[in-house]
């Protein structure tokens, strides 16, 4: 049962990483244009997509 002492905190850490990752995606404005993101992968882009210039997007963590 000693393995629980290792695995239980480990699984909580994993969950925590997921939450932090979610917060990061939220702050970096990845949910601001969900429809557009789904369609953009279909575009043949000779040069990389311009950085987000949406004025309503959050600029950096606040």
């Amino acid at each position, binding site marked *: 049962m000693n393995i*629980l002492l290792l695995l239980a905190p480990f699984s909580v850490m994993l969950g925590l990483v*997921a*939450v932090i990752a979610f*917060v990061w995606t939220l702050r970096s404005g990845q949910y601001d244009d969900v429809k*557009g993101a789904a*369609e953009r992968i279909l575009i043949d882009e000779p040069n990389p997509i*311009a950085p987000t*210039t949406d*004025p*309503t997007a959050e600029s950096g963590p606040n």
Partner: protein
Amino acid sequence: MTLDTAIGRDMSAFVRRREDGRDRLDLLVTGARCAGCISKIEGEVSALPGVRSARLNLSTGRLAIEVSAGAIDPGRVIGALAGLGYPATPYDPGAALQQRDREGRKLILALAVAGFGAMNAMMFSVPLWAGLFDQELGPATRTMMMWMSAAVGAPCAIFAGMTFFESAWRSLRAGRANMDVPISVGVILTLAISFSETILNGRDAYFDAAVSLLFLLLIGRWLDHRLKASARSAAGDLLALQAPTVCLVDGAGRERSIPLGDVASGDRIRVRPGDRIPVDAVLEDGEALLDNSLLTGESAPERVARGQLCRAGAVNLAGLLTLRAEAGSEDSTLAEIARLIDAGAQSRSRYVRLADRAAALYVPVVHAAAVLTFAGGWALGLDPREALIRAVAVLIVTCPCALGLAVPAVQIVASARLFRRGVLVKSGAALERLAEVDHVVFDKTGVLTEGRPALIETPRCVVAMAAPLARASNHPMARAVARVAGDGPVATDVIEHAGLGVEGLIDGRRARLGRSAFVGVPTLSGSETELWFGFEDGPKVRLRFSDTPRPDAAQTVAALLARGLTVEILSGDQAGVVEAVARSVGIPVWRSGLLPEDKAEAVDHLAAAGRKVLMVGDGLNDAAALARAHAAIAPGSAIEASQNAADLVLTQDRLMAVVEALDVARSSRRRALENFGFAALYNLVAAPAAMIGLVNPFVAALAMSGSSLVVTLNALRLRAAR
């Protein structure tokens, strides 16, 4: 402001400098739907000189363009987009920036944390609840599990519960109890009991129950917020489409474009034919013909002489006008009407929503039940700890989760369905009010009718004869003639005589189109709903116009009558015109010649007689009545003030949408009541069970989740419902 007039205008006022020192132009693009649209729009716009980058947000239709300083003409960008087939208008993101969705982000963050907490705390609870400790696991592991559950669950519960605690605290301080009070009490008590159990090496800990409860409640909160936010942003976009610029004439006679808000009293402004008068202003030069139909409902154009006041909102029908502003934009006839609207909106905010009514009953009952359980259990010889756990189980099992979800879930499904059908719902309360309506009041011009003159019963040869001259003019009547005639030759040497008509050469012969006296006919009727045409030396012919009813107006009225509602017209127009329209669409009751105050008063009278009035109107003259009515609908073509005052806005040009909105509102009310019924039934079964100790807090949380699921599924039935 229509889209086609936007192209020819000076829009440089819309290029704004941001905090980072770069110039930015924001446009609202309609019609973009797919990857192809994105690449076409972004590609075309980035290729224009002066554009550094362009990024389209497909969800909101906003195109953000970064431009090199002063090197861009927004008109060209809009023109280029129009060429691609995407109408666009400048948009001021200032307001949108202010109301950034902080609330929504806070909720979704709390939701994420609650989800994380629920899953991880439950991970430690499963062995506890599965009874593994009697078989395989020792008491040391058990204590560790409880502490782990506490370490994960408690902070998450406190963080995620903040929304509820704050709101409960606010309402308690105001001396009232809302639905957040039992939630907060339940969660805090659960946490306290769980901690004491954990510390005292007791049997039960319910950290997982507390967090999962909050998780489910937050889903309901977030749905409610999404509904409000999406409605608000869509309404904002509609208003942004009308964001007007004003053409200002400076001392040297140069024209400059400024935003409407910057106009001050005494400024000289210029208004082109077809444009709206931006502020109350005195006519400086010439004679004007104004369409006041949005202001007064009177569809016949009104002549205004030099030195007279032109009211904001009127449309300039002929000739270039120079005016001197009498007042800034906040301080005009519009402002007067805005005051009337405010008064109306206040009287409407007294309306109590279904959920609030349920909460008013619910909160005291639940608290009483919990207190009774605790006191009763103790008095009957239970030990206080056991009695407290039962009381908490009562609070949790009866948690207003299903109640909290009952209405938002229904309303978000209903509004999504209506939005697809071209109706924008501005608030959930609007749907509830709409469902109660039993009397419908229509405005005439622009609602039952197209709101623009249409040619009636004129021989084709006459139309064809007048067409070349009509094509050369911007006047709505001339445009109606040109529409009927189709494409063809255009007259040359055209001179537009303000308020009289146009004159030009057709095949070398001089011809005139306009008022009877102007064309050279002794005045017979002087009616404003006719136009005369004649060659200088030939016979004169008459072209008659009327404002035709919308194609689906009669169908809409019939559908409303079939649903048992009574229908009436309140119009500012002359009796004869109103009667004709009333007869053609099948409305038996009508009143004419009403001023804005009269309309509002008429609505008040109906309300005083116990009728729940739905007002459908578009004009400034309807705005006050829209605000006073029990529920209000404005077409998308309505002016800003009316759209603000209305609960629902029709985004497509179909009047039948009114009937659809009514149907959906009624069925969503039915669903909401079903949900309340279910929640009540559930509580009637679950609460006594918890009182006699059949339910521990964890099972309570499970039962409660089940009840919310049922409620949500019931709401989803609306999507398919006819």
